[in-house]
């Protein structure tokens, strides 16, 4: 796809792509969860994130004459701007089913982040974004409740579940700094009134996360410097594999109508 994206587009695509890729990952649980109720809950969250992504992609695409599927299915890897955290497989070795501990930890971390972000986007100067945020915020609060409950339940469950959750937290922690990085895209969004600098979400995120970790008897690892540039289109090696699935059908049947 040949499209050059403005700072406004990029700001919104970062959010849209993070929701889209997280949805794609969580949909992998459908049929494979530890309890049937979680097959439903994970699918439900995946559906919500997919819906949020679709709304934003449609909104961004409108300016380029592109629809949601052209954006989702025909961009190349470096044109995706999601945070790398969203694209990691649930288990480091890619096994199916994945590591539910990581799923719970990531969904908690990102639901909290989304909740804080949507709260701020309610006041976006772009009324469409504000409208999307209003719906998404309700969903995110539910996701945070659900995932946070599991975090506490598993962190403060058995010795094994505690160890697994702590390992999951340790695995995701180095991916967090990207969620709070600051750059010219954020600056543009702030000056347009489009949305907050992500950096501004860090303090409230950390305070609430620490409270959750404490209830879950888990420890926050030491912070490390940011090494990830998903927001600038520089991803982990996992995204390419994920996209080869996500986009396969559109590419294998060119000109298809679905």
């Amino acid at each position, binding site marked *: 796809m040949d499209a050059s994206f403005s700072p406004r587009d990029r700001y919104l695509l970062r959010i849209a792509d993070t929701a*889209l890729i997280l949805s*794609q990952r969580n*949909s*992998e649980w*459908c*049929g*494979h*969860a*530890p*309890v*049937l*109720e*979680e*097959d*439903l809950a994970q*699918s*439900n969250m*995946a*559906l919500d994130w*997919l*819906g949020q*992504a*679709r709304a934003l*992609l449609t909104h961004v695409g409108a300016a380029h004459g592109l629809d*949601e*599927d052209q954006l*989702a*299915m025909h961009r190349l890897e470096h044109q995706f701007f999601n945070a790398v955290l969203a694209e990691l497989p649930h288990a480091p070795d890619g096994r*199916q*089913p994945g590591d*539910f501990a990581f799923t719970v930890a990531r969904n908690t971390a990102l639901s909290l982040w989304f909740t804080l972000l949507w709260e701020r986007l309610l006041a976006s100067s772009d009324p469409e974004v504000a409208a999307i945020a209003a719906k998404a915020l309700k969903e995110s609060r539910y996701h945070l409740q659900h995932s946070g409950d599991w975090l*506490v*339940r*598993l962190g*403060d*469950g*058995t010795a*094994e*579940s505690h160890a*697994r959750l702590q390992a999951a937290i340790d695995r995701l922690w180095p991916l967090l700094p990207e969620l709070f990085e600051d750059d010219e895209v954020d600056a543009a969004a702030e000056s347009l009134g489009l949305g907050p600098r992500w950096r501004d979400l860090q303090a409230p995120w950390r305070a609430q996360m620490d409270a959750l970790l404490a209830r879950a008897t888990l420890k926050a690892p030491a912070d490390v410097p940011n090494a990830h540039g998903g927001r600038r289109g520089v991803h982990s090696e996992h995204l390419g594999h994920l996209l080869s*699935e*996500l986009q*396969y*059908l*559109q590419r294998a*049947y*060119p*000109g*298809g*109508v*679905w």
Partner: protein
Amino acid sequence: AAKEAAFEARIEAGDFIEAKDWMPAHYRKTLVRQISQHAHSEIVGMLPEGNWITRAPTLKRKAILLAKVQDEGGHGLYLYAAAETLGTSRDEMTRALLTGKAKYSSIFNYPTLTWADVGVIGWLVDGAAIMNQVPLCRCSYGPYARAMIRVCREESFHQRQGYESLLVIMQNGTAAQKAMVQDAVNRWWWPSLMMFGPPDDQSPNSEQSLRWGIKRFTNDELRQKFVDATVDQAKVLGVTLPDPDIRWNEARGHHDFGAINWDEFWRVVGGNGPCNRERLAARNRAWDEGAWVREAAMAHAAKQQAQHKEAA
């Protein structure tokens, strides 16, 4: 014996039997078997369609498919709950599935090989399931009948969605897409017909079930209804059903159709279909890998309870 007579009279009168009511042991057992098998089918049925969620061609189709597979999980939930009213537990039923003791619908032992399989499953497999299930909404056991009302409503919706997704392709798609749809129809047609079970003269449990109002039509009656309904739908769609013997029989007022390969049916029922081993392995994996989660949830709940007690 007086109880038994009263029970038979209520069945005769078309009353619903409820969980607290007296019922013959064999009636109870038959229902538990049928309802749990139905629940298992919903759960195992999540796998073949789930295989395409990550590869759905558009975001809208992805959302529809994800919601559909989620609904199947939901059906599994109500059905397990309906079976529990008869004095079994979800754990017990799950173990029967995982050890291969309990059956599930054999149709899910076939693989989903293309995206069109998803649409064709909606059209044919859900179509056949509805044909089987609508009569169960009037089943004599109340909790099952009520669960089936909800299940059937959702299944009809899925069936229409599946059919519609094929129609879009057959009306406006590329030649390669249309070939994909025809290929999927070729593979799913015969297994769909097998979903109604063996021919009436080889179906030993049918008679009793009919008498008890657990079943309302015979296998062959339902199969014929399905063929009659589907032939016209295939015409509208523009696909060919892979049976040269299908033709309208004026005298019978029904479509004739070719001989079903019952050897294949029994082979797949017997565990040697293309995906039997993988389906069961996938369910066992989900269960085994999830053990620590279930244990932890119970441990946490116990801790919470202990705290509440202490506080009290």
